[in-house]
């Protein structure tokens, strides 16, 4: 029997140009309604003219190991899918927004139909052996879906010799997005 997956994402901020192809690809793939998105681009600018730095990063749900959205979901809709991802069972979701309040990463929105929605790492594609839509389209190859339980060395290779950061680690949720500086 094959080992259980534990999906995470490594995002190379040096390669990323912040073009938003990931956002548009996600919207088409997941029919995200107008005015909402499951992933987005952040721009961090520091310094003043002419001594500036800018970091561009594609951001989305962290698929936390200890996810507050799952903890606080009163209906069991938000759940661990067993492959390292956090998913939403729409039939169970009442749209109460407890998860939106609990998420330190502001990764969720309420779909106009009435359920909470967020990045699923394109679970439906993963099941078919495909990469998430954002990873597939990224012109700069900045996005990498990795399996932390795998011993294929991909995760380690990506992180080698690179400074890696994670977001809001102090919230203690065990986020699984890794940014390469």
């Amino acid at each position: 029997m094959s080992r259980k997956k534990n999906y995470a994402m490594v995002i190379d901020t040096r390669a990323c140009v912040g073009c938003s192809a990931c956002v548009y690809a996600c919207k088409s793939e997941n029919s995200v309604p107008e005015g909402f998105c499951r992933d987005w681009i952040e721009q961090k600018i520091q310094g003043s003219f002419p001594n500036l730095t800018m970091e561009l990063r594609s951001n989305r749900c962290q698929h936390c190991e200890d996810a507050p959205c799952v903890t606080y979901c009163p209906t069991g809709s938000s759940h661990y899918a067993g492959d390292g991802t956090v998913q939403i069972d729409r039939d169970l979701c009442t749209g109460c927004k407890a998860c939106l309040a609990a998420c330190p990463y502001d990764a969720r929105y309420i779909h106009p139909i009435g359920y909470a929605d967020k990045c699923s790492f394109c679970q439906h594609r993963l099941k078919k052996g495909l990469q998430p839509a954002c990873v597939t389209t990224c012109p700069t190859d900045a996005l990498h879906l990795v399996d932390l339980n795998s011993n294929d060395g991909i995760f380690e290779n990506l992180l080698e010799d690179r400074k890696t950061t994670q977001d809001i680690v102090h919230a203690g949720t065990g986020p699984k997005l890794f940014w390469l500086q």
Partner: protein
Amino acid sequence: MAKVNRRQFIKISSAFLASSAAASQVFDWPFQVKNAIAEEFLTADRIVPTTCEICFWRCGVDAHVRDEKVYKLTGQANHPLSNGRLCPRGNGGQGLLYDPNRLRHPLIRVTVNGKPQFRKTSWDEALTLIAERFQQITEQYGTESVAMFSHGFGASFFKTLFSAYGIRTFSAPSYAQCRGPRTEAFKLTYGHAVGSPEAIDVANSKYLVLLGSHLGENMHNTAVQDFSKAISRGCKVVVVDPRYSTAASKAEHWLPIKPGTDLALLRSWIHILINEKIYDVEFIENNATGLEELWEGVKDATPEKTYALTGIPVEQIVAVGRDLGRYGSSALIHPGRHVTWYGDDTQRERAIAILNALLGNYQMPGGLIQQEKYSSYKPKFPVARNAGQQFKSRYPFASSVPANEIVEQTISADPYPVKSWFVYGTNLIHSLGDQRATMEAIQNLDFMVAVDVLPAEITGYADVVLPECTYLERYDDLDNRTYRIPYLAIRQPAVAPLYDSKPGHEIARLLSMKMGLPDLFEADIETYLDKQLKEMGSSLSELKKSGVLKKEESDLYRKEGEMLRFKTPSGKIELASQRLKDAGFDAVPQYYPPPENPPGYFRMLYGRAPMHTFGRTANNRVLGELMPENELWVNEIAGHDMKLKHGEYVYLVNQDQVKSRTRIKVRLTQRIRPDAVYLVHGFGHTDPRMEFAFRRGVSDADLVTKLSVDPIMGGTGMNNNFVTFSRT
């Protein structure tokens, strides 16, 4: 005598518009189906490989079709320009296909109660009228009195038709308003152009210098893929730009140069390379002429003097100059793409060409490379024998017709009158600059036809408007351009044309019947393409399935000791150009300072955003979601001095007191010099038929009243315009 304004812009026309507006309100976006969940979209009824045209890079896309609607576009895995990936614009192509404001029917200009209006008409009536008017005009003024403007490769069918008819004046703003200076500079230096996609090996560069290039904001897919690859492989990047661009954020050195002084900086680097003898001595000895003259010509360009001109500190100029010498043939000065800036553009591009030569990067990894075509086969069409005069540019090195010169001649009628324009897919109002001249020229026309997908401003001035269907609904000619991986790609319809729109090839064929050339085109496009493909050893059925055919990567690099021969008069790379000298220009690029800012004015610079292609995507509701309008970048301190508030809307007023038609949102930022402002090109549309884009942001083209024309090839430098702000 009062001039009759015959060609009044048609703002709102009759009933058909109201019905299209109503349609837009109930329009159901196929990719946002109510109650849909992602899983429902897993299976497409079919996936159609075709060629994108949201910009002109021509990536391979897979159109995913379900219930006869394109709901998703992805990058074709096998296509060498997309490699399975797509830029944001390519991802949002459905926004064009399902744009509720698309042109739906042929339109004819009529006058009702003294007011011009468009009347919905049939294809037959519209095309009959065009053929009749062309006949009248060419009989009266000669075939040279008709000019065609175009952008995009769907134009090829009309060029074929008009060439057979005797019309010979074809012009594209992508020449004199964009890449022309680069083309001529590289031809003068190396005997050939850089081409598009550019024959440069960015992915393997170790040291890359970008001047005002918007790589990463300009999202030509493979160009950005290569750029990111280079960065990931440790390439050092130098960005020369008054603005802290996306590329600048990846750079080891950002040189926030005083706008308009780039040539001074380039000359200084040439100076350093020769003075310190850190250029590729052997390569230059064997392959170039004019080194001594070059040195004489740049002797005065010391780093100290250059600092005074450019504002770039001496240490930085020297550091980069020496790095260039150190990296040598693995370094590249990127030739840029949109390069019509200050009117000295051919000479600036010459300096770039010369610097690359000194680095010895010609046909070397990381430098300028050789590209090939998949096939040398070209379909043959008859060209009229009794054709009229060839348009003669007054610029000695214009190898293409500068669009602005046609505008001038339409006004002056000298040496002969231009009475009719056929405009395919280019919104001249926004692309040419100097709108006053464009408008005056339009007033002088007897007849104008516009072929477009959307009601772009130019269509409002036309006598006949022909609605072309989008790239997702049509065949076009085969894409057989030079590239490092020779390839042959097809554009084919993913879905049938919507409304009463037609593909360009069909419009041209129907028009050819009316124009008395019934045998010019095959009866159907599929036969035409299949015949060509058979000549190239394939077939339409094969290409329809695969989307693209490709060959092994061509010989990109020169071999050790290989003798090079260049198609220049000397057979060598011309560091000093005798041809330029003979025509009265500087053989070695000299620097002439651009006009300074008038007090209280900022130099207006414009550029690109990743999710838009000029004005062509401004009405795209999918792409517009993340960027519905452009913003005006103003340096924070300079903005405070001008009492501007972040986020407020202002009008712009230029040096000629021309005011923008619309207002723009101020963005106070540290990312730009205090003497310049910046905005993304393509916004500020004033045609209410484009409901989404209407009056969002400002059009820089409104304010480019001064064109600094390059005397060498007629390119229109647009960056010598200055603006200030007005709240009213």
